[in-house]
């Protein structure tokens, strides 16, 4: 397989786990499996999941681990070809025309050829992602695809299936080697089936308690062991009580960092009340936890940890 030669450090699922872990990303087995398959089959990877579960991080870490450039296309509503794919440098083109006029060039064909050449082409992320050299194809992160509209999605379909873009005045740009594509979505809109069909789909879920503890140990240096355990148990329990917006891993890490900065060694109601804003982002949820429910959760967490020790 030529791919395995190009990706020498990702030839099995275990090596993918190892590779990501070297760069502080602890991937579960299922996620590592789809990442491995995406690399092996050269198919785009479509990651969907709640905010703050580490979807974007996968692409960043993968780029670092495989030593590839990371090209990021942050999606928003109204994203169009001019800002996603390419744009001509109009002011420079205008100048060129004036210059040509001044020097008396009247050969239209040559003028056109000059104006629409590489010099005046501004490459946007999609075009950049298609211009990787063999063996060094970039990691192309299409972040929050659900924020674009259907028109852009339809355009992307074409790019993701052929890895080529046609610029009318310039010609077709085809990737020498397809980039490693990671698409993420927060599900603020259902992405069309046709696009998902071209990708490997994976729903990124919240981690288990053991995984989350490992992540916090890894990410928050200097976080006290007892505190980490309490934080993880607390957050895990919060996710079960039907909040409007569950805290993601990013929030757990933030919270652990905040409590470490405040030099806390254990959770107590007052501390939780003061730092809840790092964990919950909806007023209704905060009000619930600051009321009686937070106390009950904390009591349950302490009982649980006592029983475990």
């Amino acid at each position, binding site marked *: 397989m030529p791919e395995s030669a190009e990706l020498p450090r990702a030839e099995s699922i275990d090596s993918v786990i190892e590779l990501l872990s070297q760069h502080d990303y602890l991937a579960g087995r299922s996620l590592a499996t789809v990442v491995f398959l995406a690399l092996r089959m050269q198919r785009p990877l479509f990651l969907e999941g709640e905010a703050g579960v580490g979807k974007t991080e996968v692409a960043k870490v993968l780029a670092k681990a495989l030593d590839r450039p990371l090209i990021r296309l942050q999606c*928003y*509503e*109204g994203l*169009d070809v*001019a800002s996603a794919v390419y*744009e*001509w440098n*109009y002011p420079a*083109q*205008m100048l060129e*025309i004036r210059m*040509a*006029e001044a020097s008396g060039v*009247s050969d*239209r064909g040559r*003028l*056109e050829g000059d*104006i629409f050449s590489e010099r005046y082409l501004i490459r946007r992320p999609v075009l950049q992602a298609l211009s990787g050299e063999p063996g060094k194809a970039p990691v192309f992160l299409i972040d929050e695809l*659900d*924020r674009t*509209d*259907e*028109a852009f999605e339809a355009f992307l379909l074409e790019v993701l299936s052929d890895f080529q873009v046609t610029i009318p*005045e310039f010609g077709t740009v085809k990737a020498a080697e397809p980039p490693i594509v990671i698409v993420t979505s*927060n*599900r*603020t*809109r*259902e992405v069309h089936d046709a696009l998902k069909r071209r990708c490997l789909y994976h729903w990124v879920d919240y981690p288990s308690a053991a995984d989350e503890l490992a992540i916090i140990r890894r990410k928050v240096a200097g976080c006290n062991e007892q505190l980490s355990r309490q934080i993880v148990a607390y957050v895990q329990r919060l996710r079960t009580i039907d909040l*409007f917006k569950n805290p993601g891993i990013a929030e757990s890490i933030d919270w652990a960092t905040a409590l470490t900065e405040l030099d806390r060694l254990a959770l107590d109601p007052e501390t939780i009340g003061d730092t809840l804003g790092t964990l919950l982002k909806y007023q*209704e949820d905060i009000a619930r936890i600051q009321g009686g429910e937070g106390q009950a959760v904390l009591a349950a967490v302490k009982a649980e940890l006592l029983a475990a020790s």
Partner: protein
Amino acid sequence: MQLAGGNDGIVVPPIAAGDGRFADNILYFARVLRKAGLKPGPGAVVDAIEAVDALGIGSRVEFHAALGAIFVKRHEDQPVFDEAFEVFWQSRDLVGKMIQLMSPRSPDRSETQKPKAGQSRVSDALMGQNQRPEREERETEVEVDARLTMSPGEVFRRMDFGQMSARELSVARREIERLRLPVDTVKTRRYQPTPRGRRIDPRASMRHSLRTGGDLMLPRVREVRVQAPPLVVLADISGSMSQYSRIFLHFLHVLSERRRRVHVFLFGTRLTNVTRQLRHRDPDEAIARCTEAVADWSGGTRIGETLRVFNRQWGRRVLGQGAVVLLITDGLEREDIDLLETETDRLHRSCRRLIWLNPLLRFEGFEPRARGVRAMLPHVDELRSVHNLQALGDLVAALSAPVSRASDPRRFLLDERAS
């Protein structure tokens, strides 16, 4: 294929092949199909005659396949074609079938004999509109089928809606064309060329100027494109609303057909997303699938709980991009009123516009006495009355009416304070 003749109701007695009138029959068959909603052109008829000639007198299956290959150009039309073929070229029990088609009462049907999609349209096509008794007023039959319930007090029922006749369908499509929701445009962040505008489009200007070798730099302009926002419909199908369910479903089906980005949810005691079922092009087929998908037709209602589920599971997924929410319910909530208020509030704050269509409002002197109604009132942008929910035209008219004091939900609250 010798037929039992002598039925006055039969417009076209199909005649066996080789009788010299076979071509005529295919022609008539094409007409029936056209009336039933397919679009066979004259070319198709010629092709069909040719094909059958080439086929010779073969088996019925081959004949069916040959005609199908010529007349059916869209997969959705297959059930209608099948039904028409069945009726038109059927030699056995033709009389029985015709009687069944002409009988004013809907025939008894058991679970196993569901009406096939398109059956009523085919019978319209065969009989002609005038010879068929009106079926519009036909009551929907409700077959109650209590099963093992998931939650106490929840009875699963299956609904059986009358099928849509060809005329109803064309009227419905015409009505929906007239639908203009108020405030129904959203500025997108895309542009389109325009003859006069104020934003210069550099790319187009450049391309255009090259036609003259760059001598003439005429600026090309563009404007912001507007489009209709996504529409999310939450329709109540509980017992108190069941008499309107049929018209909703047809309305929603045609709406999904005519408009991009329509999401439809039905709720009684539980919420069902029927967006995909309604995408089926054939209305009967679509509605049959909806009825299969929904477990609790005309049972109880838990509006608050339903809205909670919607907000949590679907709100973020379908309310993006400035969606307008159409809430069709009478607001008769018996359970947790606080929950209802909180969730209506949340829904209101996560969409662009919340329009509540309440069939109770048409009664003179409607006062929001019901606690559920009172809880929802402060959180909707518009409360629209619909004069007669049984008529699609009135539904469309109600939704298209401009925003006015009549649709302002606060007037009920003011009236209360005054009194």
